[in-house]
């Protein structure tokens, strides 16, 4: 129930964050230009839809992170309020640590979690910025490169700011963190005249929220006329952020469902058996004149005495555990962390527990009530069933305690002394199976995270648009084994069979850098194309079929030769897209320009050194890990939680089975003692029973878990649209064997001690 409530809280965290922080409804900027007429933001502020506005400069600055790495604009932005006001009406920061910058102190800054991570700084640390003055930016924009040393590049003042707080990051961008400079900073360090900014951005909250965006956009367009400007509706990008939380929500929901099913399977049997045994004596009641209906009502009342406290305890426990949610990124954004009473989830969950326990009790009572009058289904002794397994063990010379323990593990016993061995065996198989499946799945996810090739990045480095002389230099470089140039990152999508599809279109200049192929092969000739899994499915096509690619003016027919993974970009999501040659793309997009350089290093080179060199040459790589893969990295621990949940439930079922066994088989234990079993041998009997249950679990659970783990990961990879490469962590899985046996014996410790203390005389006398 806690998991279900946590899932709901995780899913709704982003919406509640936007409400609590007064998120902007739109952003407008006049674009990046010098000396030209630009959009008058003052007129935008006065549009009738605007309720509140804030003006912020996106400053140009050079900086280095704690480890000396340059902080390029794609990783960190520096925002300064232009009106001296604190950010308290729009996009209010959600503080995680520290405090907001003091408007009276210009050298303070607030960093969001991503910015602090990129810069390698914490609250209390300082960051030195080489500001780029307005003049320098105006005259030298092309020459400014972010690998320049801030200490020596004299493009503006050198400023040291202190990080006084950390805020949550809810940006929709794949990359990018922000430092919010003090409201006093802009004025002190030169304002509009002194400081160079890439963009002055107006954030607005509208009177009727998102509903006013179309009217507002129309007003902006009218005021802008022929002038260029930027307009950003954040609601368009919010689904991207929400998607990462949705993934974690689904994981929690899956965990909740699995937990519920496991509990039902594992405890349901015990509940049913208990309810059945509680109905013992119904034969007597019927002979006294009670009707079937009255007996069922009696069973229901009995079940209710269990169900009501169970439901109450469940609700209480869920409330106590509520501070653990939300999880992942949502936890950072949660505006009201701590205890949370989700009335709906708790009410539904409590009702479910109540109804299930009641239903099990009524069902068990109904079964007993169906028995013929005078017949007591419980007391009737069934002939004992004898197994050859224990006989074989005895013949093989196994110790009597072992033989007795195995017998108790696999034989239910006669009705009155029946023990839920089946539940314990099933629980054991489930626990081992789930643990192995979880380990296999998690190892494969880790492998995916660490192997860019699997999510389409089949090269070592990806650079942005580059001058041809750089490309020629790389072609001649012996450290470069493969080189491809084309369009991918910034290229607009094409239409394939009427559907808008992002493309990665490169020509091989040196060696061969093929896309990651799942099925079929990479394109080799100008009329071939490879499609992402989801795109192929959406088009309803198969390998070998033909498609038509067009930009509205030009069209070309292409044959699908493969299904693979197209590297993500800002517009291309994992599982989607098309891969083809750049020359083929230009048959449709005749004006297309190369914006992507893929580089594969030659074998044997110093990888770290060469990557650092390429980083300097290109001023950073534009490659990013796909958000979907990063999101899964946030839940890669989930399989372990599932395994831990099922394992704990299995241990509980085993403990119940052992304690029940000792209670119901006390006569057998007493007889063994009269035959000469020592207390230690009785303990050993219980330990053997537990070990047998663990061994059955291992024998059946190991292969089952391996199969399920592989199947689940293949399904996951196919769904995600990545290359499936299942990893079986043999070394870790082997540890499951001793772990299962140790856990089983730990669970058996108390029951074994109890068994050793069996006093035969009173037991046998009572029997």
């Amino acid at each position, binding site marked *: 129930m806690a998991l279900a409530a946590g899932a709901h809280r995780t899913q709704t965290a982003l919406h509640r964050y936007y409400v609590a922080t007064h998120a902007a409804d739109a952003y407008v900027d006049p674009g990046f230009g010098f000396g030209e007429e630009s959009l008058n933001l003052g007129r935008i502020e006065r549009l009738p839809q605007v309720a509140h506005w804030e003006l912020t400069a996106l400053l140009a600055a050079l900086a280095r992170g704690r480890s000396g790495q340059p902080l390029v604009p794609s990783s960190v932005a520096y925002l300064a309020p232009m009106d001296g006001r604190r950010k308290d009406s729009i996009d209010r920061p959600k503080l995680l640590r520290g405090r907001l910058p003091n408007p009276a102190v210009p050298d303070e800054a607030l960093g969001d979690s991503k910015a602090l991570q990129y810069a390698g700084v914490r609250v209390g640390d300082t960051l030195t910025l080489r500001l780029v003055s307005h003049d320098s930016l105006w005259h030298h924009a092309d020459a400014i490169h972010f690998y320049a040393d801030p200490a020596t590049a004299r493009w503006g003042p050198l400023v040291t700011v202190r990080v006084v707080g950390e805020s949550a990051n809810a940006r929709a961008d794949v990359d990018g963190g922000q430092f919010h400079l003090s409201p006093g900073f802009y004025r002190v360090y030169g304002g509009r005249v002194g400081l160079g900014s890439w963009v002055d951005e107006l954030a607005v909250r509208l009177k009727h929220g998102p509903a006013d965006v179309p009217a507002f956009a129309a007003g902006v367009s009218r005021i802008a006329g022929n002038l260029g400007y930027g307009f950003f509706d954040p609601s368009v990008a919010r689904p991207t952020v929400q998607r990462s939380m949705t993934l974690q929500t689904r994981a929690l929901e899956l965990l909740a469902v699995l937990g519920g099913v496991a509990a039902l399977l594992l405890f349901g049997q015990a509940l049913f058996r208990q309810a059945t045994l509680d109905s013992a004596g119904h034969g007597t009641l019927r002979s006294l004149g009670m009707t079937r209906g009255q007996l069922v009502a009696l069973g229901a009342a009995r079940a209710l005495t269990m169900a009501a406290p169970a439901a109450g305890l469940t609700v209480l426990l869920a409330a106590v555990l509520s501070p653990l949610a939300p999880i992942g990124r949502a936890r950072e954004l949660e505006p009201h962390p701590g205890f949370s009473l989700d009335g709906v989830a708790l009410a539904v969950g409590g009702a479910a527990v109540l109804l299930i326990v009641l239903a099990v009790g009524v069902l068990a009572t109904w079964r007993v009530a169906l028995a013929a009058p005078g017949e007591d289904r419980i007391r009737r*002794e069934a002939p004992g069933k*004898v197994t050859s397994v*224990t006989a074989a063990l005895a013949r*093989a010379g196994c110790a009597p305690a072992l033989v007795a323990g195995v017998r108790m593990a696999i034989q239910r016993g006669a009705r009155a002394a029946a023990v839920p061995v089946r539940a314990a065996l099933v629980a054991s198989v489930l626990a081992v199976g789930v643990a192995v499946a979880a380990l296999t799945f998690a190892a494969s996810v880790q492998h995916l995270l660490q192997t860019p090739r699997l999510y389409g990045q089949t090269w070592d480095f990806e650079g942005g648009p580059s001058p041809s002389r750089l490309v020629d230099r790389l072609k001649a470089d012996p450290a470069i084994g493969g080189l491809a140039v084309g369009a991918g990152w910034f290229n607009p999508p094409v239409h394939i069979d009427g559907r808008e599809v992002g493309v990665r279109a490169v020509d091989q200049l040196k060696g061969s850098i093929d896309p990651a192929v799942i099925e079929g092969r990479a394109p080799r000739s100008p009329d071939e194309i490879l499609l992402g899994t989801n795109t192929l499915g959406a088009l309803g096509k198969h390998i070998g079929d033909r498609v038509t690619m067009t930009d509205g003016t030009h069209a070309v027919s292409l044959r699908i030769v493969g299904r693979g993974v197209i590297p993500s970009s800002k517009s291309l999501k994992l599982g989607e897209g098309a891969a083809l040659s750049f020359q083929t793309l230009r048959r449709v997009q005749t004006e297309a320009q190369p914006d992507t350089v893929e580089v594969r290093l030659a074998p044997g080179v110093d990888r770290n050194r060469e990557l650092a060199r390429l980083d300097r040459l290109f001023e950073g790589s534009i490659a990013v890990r796909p958000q979907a893969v990063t999101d899964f990295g946030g839940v890669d621990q989930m399989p372990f939680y599932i395994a831990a949940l099922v394992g704990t439930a299995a241990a509980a079922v085993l403990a119940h089975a052992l304690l029940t066994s000792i209670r119901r088989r006390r006569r057998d234990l007493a007889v063994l003692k009269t035959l000469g079993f020592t207390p230690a041998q009785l303990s050993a009997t219980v330990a053997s029973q537990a070990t047998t249950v663990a061994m059955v679990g291992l024998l059946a659970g190991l292969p089952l878990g391996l199969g399920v783990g592989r199947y689940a990961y293949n399904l996951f990879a196919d769904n995600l649209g990545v290359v499936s490469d299942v990893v079986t962590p043999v070394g870790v899985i082997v540890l499951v064997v001793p772990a299962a046996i140790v856990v089983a014996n730990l669970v058996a410790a108390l029951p074994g001690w109890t068994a050793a203390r069996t006093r035969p005389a009173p037991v046998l006398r009572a029997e």
Partner: protein
Amino acid sequence: MPVRALRSVNLSVEAGEFVAIMGPSGCGKSTLLNLVAGLDIPSDGELELAGVTLRGKSERELARLRRAHIGIVFQFFNLLEDMSALENVALAAAIAGASPRQAERRARDLLDLLGLADKGREAPGLLSGGQRQRLAIARALANEPTLVLADEPTGALDSEGGLEVLELFRRLHADGQTILMVTHDQRVADAASRIVLMRDGRLPYVDDDLSAAPFTGARRA
């Protein structure tokens, strides 16, 4: 409140004897048997079994003594229902230290001796009352005990079954087995070579009224 189950018990059983302790229900017969078997510990007094005193022995030591010297036959059989007849008997031999082969052979021999040779694979639940008690006796003999203890061995049987069991005990005694049996039934006690009365926790019980009665000799009516 503690109950004094036994008081003033004085008994010795010689090797080869078949002794019946007779007394009403609740007089302490089963308690005495449990003490002899080492399943209970006396609060005071001395108890010796096969020359070994039981006083001060740990549970483990008592268990080992039981394996070596004691076979118990219960009123309600107390067989292990999930094991076959053969396994029930073989288990007792195995616990006493016999190898698997020896245990199985001994079990078969005993079942044969007690007329259950064809019932070896059966579960106890499928046997008649008399057959189950014979199986219990076979199990009690599996460890070649110094002493067989029998607690109301015919109590749960019909008259025919009871006679079968008593005849078995006579045969075992004739073969030299030492038996100590408790019963409330005179007819069952008569199978023994010596009867000792027990009452109110006292053994041997002497009826003071009878011993104090005047000697009347023989009188004509």
